[in-house]
């Protein structure tokens, strides 16, 4: 069976930072798997600015931020990059199977870093009653449609939830000429960063309803309107507060779930509530040599934090490999 010292699953900011860090700390046989046709992950669709303020002390767009890592990773010949490559199976012995066009490959990794990111919570998890027409998108999918595919999902938009992607998409839709009718948040406070509430919602005078929920969706083929109601402390609808908004699009932005199905498949201990592996130390799992970083480890507000976390994971994997090879760990690991 093919063997690799270190396999990293995910070529977004987390995976790239981990790969570079592992290389800089002495690992020389690294395979980086990315399921998309490009490196960069979700940052590719984040064309807005405000990335890198903490890590680079500069204000960058998403593609600019990821571009710095893409250039660096590509310049290191010890990092083999495999695109369009889907990891489909992982065992507790760190045998990984991935599929790419024309190939299914099984390999044994001495160490693995899972940088698989997160997925968005969906309408199905919210149990919003009513119709199930076209026009309901996760905020991230709407972002991809506009920024990557050049398509406008809708013209009259309501945003359910106030996660950062939802807030950013409120501004994005306005800039695209659509009307954003409301942002509706069931909690007492916004979920996203204050700066996004100010810059993406308040500055554009978009109505922002806290302690409200969408209680029904209408529309036969396409979303036509929704019911909104105020909720009490227990998130129950308060009678007599219901009103309707006409819209053709409903975005769902109610948080992210770390994507750790491969780690679960490998039978590492999981915290079912957070969908993250249980371990005593940062970036580790209950399986020795299986590491996790970035949003798969914990949902971060800023990509800068993802990078720092992933640099640490790369170093931990390097330490693990050096120990395993019987060498002593050199002082001054980066």
């Amino acid at each position, binding site marked *: 069976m093919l063997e690799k010292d270190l396999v990293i699953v995910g070529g977004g900011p987390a995976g790239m930072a981990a790969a570079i860090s592992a290389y800089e700390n002495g690992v020389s046989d690294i395979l980086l798997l990315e*399921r998309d046709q490009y490196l960069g992950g979700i940052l590719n669709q984040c064309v807005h600015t405000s990335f890198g303020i903490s890590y680079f002390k500069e204000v960058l767009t998403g593609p600019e931020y990821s571009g710095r890592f893409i250039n660096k990773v590509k310049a290191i010949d010890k990092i083999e990059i495999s695109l*369009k490559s*889907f990891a*489909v*199976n992982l065992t507790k012995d760190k045998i990984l*199977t991935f*599929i*790419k*066009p*024309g*190939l*299914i490959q099984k390999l044994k990794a001495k160490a693995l870093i899972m940088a698989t990111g997160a*997925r*968005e919570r*969906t*309408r*199905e*998890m919210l*149990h919003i*009653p*009513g*119709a*199930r*027409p*076209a026009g309901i998108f*996760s905020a*991230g*999918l709407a972002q*991809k*449609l*506009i920024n*990557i*595919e*050049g*398509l*406008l*999902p*809708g*013209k009259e938009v309501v945003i359910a939830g106030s996660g950062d992607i939802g807030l950013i998409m409120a501004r994005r839709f306005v800039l*695209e*000429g659509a009307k954003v009718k409301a942002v509706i948040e069931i909690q007492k406070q916004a979920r996203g960063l204050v700066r996004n509430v100010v810059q993406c919602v308040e500055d554009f005078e978009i109505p922002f309803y806290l302690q409200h929920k969408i209680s*029904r*969706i*209408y529309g*036969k*083929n*396409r979303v036509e309107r929704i019911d909104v109601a105020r909720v009490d402390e227990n998130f129950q609808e308060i009678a007599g507060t219901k009103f309707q908004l006409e819209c*053709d699009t409903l975005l769902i932005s109610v948080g992210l779930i770390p994507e750790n199905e491969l780690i679960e498949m490998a039978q590492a201990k999981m915290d079912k509530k957070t969908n993250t592996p249980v371990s005593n130390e940062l970036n580790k799992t209950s399986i020795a040599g299986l590491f996790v970083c970035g949003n798969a480890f914990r949902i971060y507000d800023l990509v800068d934090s993802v990078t720092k976390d992933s640099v640490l994971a790369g170093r931990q994997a390097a330490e693990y490999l050096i120990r395993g090879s019987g060498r002593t760990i050199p002082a001054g690991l980066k």
Partner: protein
Amino acid sequence: MNSYDVAIIGAGAAGASIARELSRYKLNIAVLEKEAECGFGVSKSNSGIIHPGTQNPPNSLKGRLCVQGNILTRSIAKELGVDFQEAGELIVIFDERDLPRLLELKREAEALAVPELRIVDRGWLKENEPNLSPEARLALYAPTAGIISPYRLVYALCENAVRNGVEIHTQAKVENIISLSPARELNARFEIVTLKGTFRASYVINAAGLYADDLSRMAGIDDFTIRPRKGEEFILDKKKQNLTRHLLFPLPSKTSKGILVIRTADGNPMVGPTAEDAKDKDDLSTSDEGLKKVFSSVKRLVPAIDEADIIAYFAGLRPVAGEDFIIRYEDKAPGFINVAGIQSPGLTAAPAIARMVCAMLKKNGLNLRKKIIFHSKRKKPIHLFNIPLSKTQRFIRKDASFGDIVCRCELVSAREVSDAIAGGARTLDGIKFRTRAQGGRCHGTFCTTRLMKILSQETNTPLTAVSKRGLGSEIVKEERTP
């Protein structure tokens, strides 16, 4: 104008079964479907149970057809490469005072020749259905109950019918039926005006589901009404696929078989349906009340069921025309056959309905001559999720696009999506029903754009025309203006 021997209105389970059965004979057949794809009406929300024949009124037509259909479905599924699992069903009682009612159900079913029925006790239930409530006392066990994917069965029937020469016209909503009397020529007793043009046919079979009453009225037969009865269903995470082994039923009520704990052909537990009379034939909305009703009811059967495991929910409408099916040759409109009120157990009964309709056609003058070559088999579509990883290499070697993964949650490749489109998928829902892409835990967040592009390329339509389930449900409004 094209003339046909037979026009079938509606490409649901009944219409598709009739089309496939008739395609054995030397006939020109057209199927007229109002939706963008086959099976998009009543059938797509069917629960997928192949009923054994229990819980039907004694001496009913639907009871008889159900028992026959249970047998026929097995061979059809095999011929058409559709998975059929014999799961068996349990009708459960919690109070021994209900035993007489259970025995009555058993007697009624035996009168319809439902095989292998028996009453099982607490000990049997504990051993064979461990998650069933310990309060369940006894059950009527019907081992011949099964599970099938309702839409994959309809697609398979339609693909096979087309292979055998049937024409299927989608988005061909029937606007009017004109009886040409006296018949101008043999092939033209009826003129059917649709949104896709006018069709002439010698025989018309009305299998129009919820709208069968409207269609029948167009032909001058106005003695029944279809009342929609809504059912809400909830699908649970596949991680819970070992929750139950059998299909679990409570004692049936007058209007429905009750709220059930079953599983889908893909292995997800499914709970529901409710049974509420609806006013609107388009109303597929779900409700908080439905959720509450279903979960309070199924938790009595299986206490371990948890709302937190819901991954999808939907509602369907049963086309109710009274107690029984209406399947009859209309002497007042010679050449017109009604296949109406096909509610539960319609999916099970469909192949038997098809045979019954063939016999009616023959009796009423249609010459049924068998084709020399009838393609009875359909190649089973390849789905990576059904294949062990050890065998996947073989397919990827044969076609590299089996290695081009489109859907991460359900492991669906670009090749499977292309095959689905070749088989008739024209919408994102059609792709989902065939391949499961978008049907997993991320609900299409990852794969939607890729699916749109494949659909757009392979059907040569703009991205802005790609829809969820047909006209009016386009995914995006327009291209961005730079």
